[in-house]
């Protein structure tokens, strides 16, 4: 890779390499468009997974879930209206509107600045981390290129580092709310994320080493995805995949690890004092974190944009192949989100001490063991 911060090569696609200034302007414009597009992907998924969460949990419990909310004019459209209504998709709009239009109270006892910053801090890292995720691949000038807003050489480290900044949102919320339940929630969230970050980072190393064998940029998500056009890493390194998956559940504060907002003992955890739009930001941030986390898992272990192990979209198909790679990735994200929701409605919550024990006494040693074993195997 010749430059470390290589962006999407739009000029080459559009053949607009003639003039330099319009080239730069076009480049900037397209980057903005692409950044917006990747944010859109994450936000759409975050929104849809809220509906999916409600629908899937209802189905698992033998209920039907939201199927009555109707927007007056849209619901009157013959087939589509009924489809949207039955599948609870209009509930999404209603929820969003509710979060937007509700009164936004600011409790008197909070630290106002950090209280306001916390929801922003929990959502924005997710959106920043989304820009390095390769949502697919395309071919240009005989070389495979990622369908990512920014293709940087250390995108794996970038995504892990920025993605885990989201916990500052929970910590700020917990501290600034100046009330005991959010405080406990914030403490738990930070302790949990710190513990599982280690296991997560260690489990990724073995993948990076195996990519490093035949790539100059093993920390790039694109290169990692590319290395899986034959065998996926979840097949060659199942233990690393399992550790990463468990750590991912803990990182995103999903059940069975959602001690940070366990309703049973902490009311609603770190966002107890929040309401309306600020709560909505936390909510979207949580689901956005799930989307980014699961796309990381997909890139690292589930073969990225390749449809099946041993099968990849051929270069000769051109843009059709690029489109399919994007669709494959999207389908995989959807499946991962379903898995997240499915697990949530299956397992009870771990106790806080159990969470810590699993993190420090099981996952970290296992990840270390996995890493050293892999090192030994690779060096032989």
């Amino acid at each position, binding site marked *: 890779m010749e430059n470390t911060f290589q962006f999407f090569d739009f000029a080459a696609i559009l053949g607009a390499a003639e003039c330099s200034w319009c080239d730069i302007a076009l480049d900037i414009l397209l980057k903005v468009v692409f950044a917006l597009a990747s944010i859109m992907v994450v936000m759409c998924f975050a929104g849809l997974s809220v509906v999916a969460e409600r629908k899937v949990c209802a*189905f698992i419990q033998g209920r039907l879930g939201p199927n009555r909310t109707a927007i007056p004019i849209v619901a009157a459209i013959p087939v589509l209206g009924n489809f949207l209504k039955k599948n609870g998709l209009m509930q999404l709009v209603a929820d969003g509107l509710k979060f937007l239009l509700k009164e936004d109270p600011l409790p008197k006892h909070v630290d106002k600045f950090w209280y306001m910053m916390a929801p922003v801090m929990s959502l924005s890292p997710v959106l920043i981390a989304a820009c390095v995720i390769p949502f697919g691949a395309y071919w240009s000038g005989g070389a495979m290129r990622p369908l990512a807003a920014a293709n940087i050489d250390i995108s794996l480290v970038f995504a892990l580092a920025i993605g885990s900044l989201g916990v500052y949102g929970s910590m700020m919320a917990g501290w600034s709310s100046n009330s005991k339940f959010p405080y406990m929630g914030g403490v738990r969230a930070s302790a949990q994320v710190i513990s599982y970050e280690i296991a997560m980072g260690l489990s990724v190393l073995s993948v990076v080493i195996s990519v490093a064998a035949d790539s100059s940029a093993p920390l790039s998500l694109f290169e990692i995805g590319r290395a899986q056009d034959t065998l996926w890493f979840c097949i060659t390194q199942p233990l690393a995949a399992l550790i990463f998956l468990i750590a991912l559940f803990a990182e995103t504060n999903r059940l069975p690890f959602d001690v940070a907002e366990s309703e049973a003992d902490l009311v609603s955890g770190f966002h107890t004092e929040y309401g309306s739009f600020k709560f909505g930001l936390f909510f979207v941030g949580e689901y956005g974190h799930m989307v980014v986390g699961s796309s990381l898992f997909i890139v690292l272990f589930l073969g990225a944009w390749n449809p099946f192990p041993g099968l990849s979209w051929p270069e000769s198909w051109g843009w059709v192949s690029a489109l399919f790679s994007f669709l494959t990735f999207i389908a995989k994200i959807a499946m991962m989100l379903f898995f997240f929701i499915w697990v949530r*409605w299956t397992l009870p919550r771990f106790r806080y001490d159990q969470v810590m024990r699993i993190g420090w006494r099981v996952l970290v040693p296992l990840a270390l063991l996995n890493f050293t074993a892999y090192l030994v195997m690779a060096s032989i």
Partner: protein
Amino acid sequence: MAIVVERKRLSLLERTYLPQIVSGLFITIKNFFRPKITLEYPDQSPVLPRGYRGSPTLVKDSQGREKCVSCQLCEFVCPSKAIRIYPGEISPNSEYSFIEKAPKEFKIDMTRCIYCGLCEEACPERAIILQNEFSLNGYTRAELVRDKAALYAAGGVIPDKIMKWKKVKDNSELGGSH
């Protein structure tokens, strides 16, 4: 003496939780595809069980005579004091003049009614009957106080083959034995 129940030692596989988690996931996915038990209420109505006690109504017999004779037993027995009866005499010109009294006004406050069915049990004429209607609503409290007309409209007609009052009336007019 307390009995110490020996706990089963978990195997290594069981202590990893993973097989249990997988079997749990199978259970939930099986439920996911099962038919749903939700009753979509306003679109589908529930099947009411036998002996269901819905709202109390007044009924007429097959000849259109109101069966209530204003004895006020239901009013007395009503534990929530939802029933209020204003008795009135039947004029001698009426077709039903043999009966002494009929309610001038009969009110049931549905915001007070507890659907216990004691009025139905107390009624010697079987004039007040709890039916299957269960969804009562209105915009004001006054709307939920059902007057005589509303109660008869909700109650309808009950087929009464014997019609005791008619028998007694005929006997007294035609001089038959009692």
